[in-house]
């Protein structure tokens, strides 16, 4: 009986039992089938009373799907859910709440422009006098009671927008606990928190756990998991990939369970063919979330910049491109020190940025493919230096030749950009900068919302750009892309480069380990 709950896969099967204390929630053989995929394929998990249980896994491993089944947002195809030993069905979030299961979502589901008290009563409604007028005295009294249960000493009349992030997190937990939550599911609660605030949140969690409240804690941040969790369950491809108790948690094993066995035939994992000249040198450059960074980028090189959200990895690209000002350090481009006051300066120095959000930051939505490709390059089509009349024929011919080189699939360069698939839109964006003759390409998640076939084409394209003599700085929210694309990877932690992984060492597991605070 007990063996069925525990992990049957992965290196931790020795410590098979899936729980630390008496079980509050047991999930047995849960299957969830969506058209075309089995999002959950026989998942077991057991959360004890007063236990802080971490749930780990990559994007798409099945964490969110599992949570949705547990909190009644969706119904499993097969399998059983037991609460305090009795099998239950959870047709709605309301039913789950009645059994004491509450969820706090990543962004806390609070309305910033209203008070703490109003937020706490958002779902059930404020108490009324005679069914009409709000009984504010009663509302504040009950709000204070709720807040004191989670150990938060703030005025319920305060605006949520005025709270610190950790206070907002606790308000969200207080709201979720409502009348009597026994299991609180936290979906990446620390994503918006600073390190000090995380500590405060953990203090509250430990106290509530000691009072018997259980937590199911979803996070990408391994360091935090080791700090707070009593148990860890790892999911991979909709199945259990391992289970650990506090006493036998091993970082390497857990990372391997998360990552699994992957092989990429086309992975670069070796030095570039040729070492080119230094194109860019960052000397303790800092600004925004980037405390400081020092590195060099050479021609022909693809350098990955990896890190957890908020670590400064993504911001590093924006900083280099002058999207916000540098507050310290020095940037040297092609041997000459520069100080970018705007992206305009960066572009003039031969830099190019393909930002993360294609629709918000890259595309001209109502325009044609041609207009999207030539956006930063209109000057080269000017027929005269004063009025800058555009030579439409030349513009079209060059846009066509770039689109052809990148094999952008489209009816023609005059087609609306909106008629292209995500992958082809992304190719047009890259084409925009190829046409500009940029020497330093900075690409943030270039394969986001792109189908698998187009991803491979974009990887090839990135390699081609480097091969042709440019330098590429690459970042992505998908860690598995770094080993496939980059020659070496700089791993950010807390706004600094925590380490560098070169060639064969730049594996997904090593990147995760370094990003989460492990040694090189």
């Amino acid at each position, binding site marked *: 009986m007990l063996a069925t709950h525990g992990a049957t896969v992965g290196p931790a099967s020795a410590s098979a039992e899936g729980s630390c204390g008496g079980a509050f929630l047991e999930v047995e053989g849960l299957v969830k089938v969506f058209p075309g995929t089995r999002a959950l394929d026989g998942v077991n998990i057991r959360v004890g009373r007063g236990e802080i249980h971490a749930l780990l896994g990559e994007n798409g491993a099945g964490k969110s799907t599992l949570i949705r089944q547990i909190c009644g947002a969706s119904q499993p195809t097969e399998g059983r859910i037991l609460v305090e030993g009795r099998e239950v069905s959870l047709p709605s979030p309301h039913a789950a709440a009645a059994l004491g299961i509450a969820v706090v979502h990543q962004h806390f589901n609070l309305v910033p422009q209203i008070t703490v008290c109003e937020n706490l009563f958002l779902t059930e409604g404020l108490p009324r006098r005679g069914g009409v007028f709000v009984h504010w005295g009663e509302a504040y009294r009950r709000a204070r009671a709720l807040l004191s249960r989670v150990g938060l000493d703030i005025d319920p009349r305060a605006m949520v927008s005025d709270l610190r992030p950790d206070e907002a997190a606790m308000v969200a937990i207080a709201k979720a606990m409502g009348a009597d939550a026994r299991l609180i599911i936290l979906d990446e609660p620390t994503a918006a928190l600073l390190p000090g605030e995380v500590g405060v949140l953990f203090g509250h969690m430990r106290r509530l756990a000691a009072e018997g409240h259980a937590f199911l804690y979803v996070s990408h941040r391994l360091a935090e998991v080791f700090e707070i969790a009593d148990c860890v369950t790892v999911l991979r491809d909709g199945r259990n990939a391992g289970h650990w108790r506090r006493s036998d948690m091993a970082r390497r094993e857990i990372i391997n369970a998360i990552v699994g066995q992957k092989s990429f035939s086309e992975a670069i994992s070796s030095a570039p063919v040729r070492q080119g000249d230094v194109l860019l040198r960052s000397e303790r450059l800092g600004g925004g979330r980037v405390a400081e960074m020092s590195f060099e980028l050479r021609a022909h090189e693809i350098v990955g910049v990896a890190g957890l959200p908020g670590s400064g990895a993504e911001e590093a690209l924006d900083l280099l491109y002058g999207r916000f000002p540098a507050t310290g350090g020095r940037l040297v481009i092609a041997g000459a020190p520069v100080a970018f006051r705007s992206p305009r300066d960066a572009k003039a120095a031969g830099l190019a940025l393909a930002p993360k959000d294609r629709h918000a930051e890259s595309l001209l939505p109502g325009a044609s493919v041609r207009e999207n490709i030539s956006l930063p390059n209109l000057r080269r089509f000017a027929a005269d230096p004063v009025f800058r009349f555009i030579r439409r024929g030349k513009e079209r011919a060059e846009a066509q030749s770039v689109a052809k080189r990148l094999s952008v699939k489209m009816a023609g360069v005059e*087609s609306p950009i909106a008629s292209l698939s995500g992958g082809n839109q992304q190719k047009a964006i890259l084409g925009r900068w190829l046409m500009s003759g940029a020497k330093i390409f900075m690409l943030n998640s270039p394969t986001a919302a792109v189908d698998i076939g187009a991803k491979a084409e974009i990887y090839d394209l990135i390699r081609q750009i480097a091969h042709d003599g440019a330098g590429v700085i690459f970042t992505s929210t998908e860690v598995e892309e770094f080993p496939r694309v980059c020659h070496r990877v700089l791993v950010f932690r807390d706004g600094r480069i925590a380490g560098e992984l070169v060639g064969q060492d730049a594996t997904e597991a090593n990147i995760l380990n370094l990003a989460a605070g492990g040694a090189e």
Partner: protein
Amino acid sequence: MTADVGARRVAARPRIDLTVFLARYGTLLSLVALLIVFSIARPDVFPTVDNLLNIMNQISILGTMAFGLTVCLVMGLFDLSIAAMATLGGYIATFLLVQYPDTISVPVAVAIALGVAAAIGVMNGLIVSYLGISAFIATLATGSIITGAVLGISDSKTIITGIPDAFMAIGQGAIILGVANPILIMLGVGLVLWLMLEHTQLGRHLYAIGGNAEASRLSGIAVKRYAPFALAVCAVCAGLGGLMSAAVLGAGRPQGVGDGYLLNAFAAVFIGASSLRPGKFHILGTMIGVLLIGVINNGLSVMGVPTYWQYIVQGLLLIAALFSAGVLTMRRR
């Protein structure tokens, strides 16, 4: 998800769709239909060269202002100060000519009036770009300030006597082939702005900023410099419209000159954005919108329909035009 949908649409594109066709050419078709209907209803009066030139003359002030407005709407900026700016343009020119008849010639007066309008337009743009106030509110405010300032300077008195004939010729003369000067001015302004928007780097940047300001900024366009330019162009066109109005009337009115044009100019530009290139503001479309308004007003009055119908029909027309443009925009998503 969006990627898949987009991929399928590539294949579907060449098919011609009736809704798409109507959204694109509906405005133009209704203009033609109206011309035919009015011609049949009053064959003796409506379809004559004189009357058609008359229509053009009637729309010339509106057209000039609407062309300017098109430039700032391309960037996504609403300029609500054009009514006040028109009043200002006409008043300043007549005021200078009457106050300093010996020192200030007509060209100088015109230049000063348009220069003041341009300066205020630049200020509008600086407020939008550097104080971060939306153009809608900023121009509403500056419009109020201008209205107050002109009333104060003029002591609410209309300038009637002493306006030189050379100035009134701007509105009443006909330099080329007997075509009235206001028509020539409108067509000239339209041609210059069309060339600018469609065929120069400047125009392409204005469209790009209106389409996606952040993408434009990341492409190295100095986004903040364009609002002062676009709003200055719009202000100059509005000032010119008011100046033409003063020349036609032979009077410098200190208030109310532009009020009738404000709504019509917006109507014309938005009707224009529903034709030929739906969802995009462009000069040719604005010209169609202006013509449509002119033809309706002229046709209805030629047929003896009471004036109040003009307002009602214009309102209905605007809703129909925006609806058809909206349908197409929704289908494109």
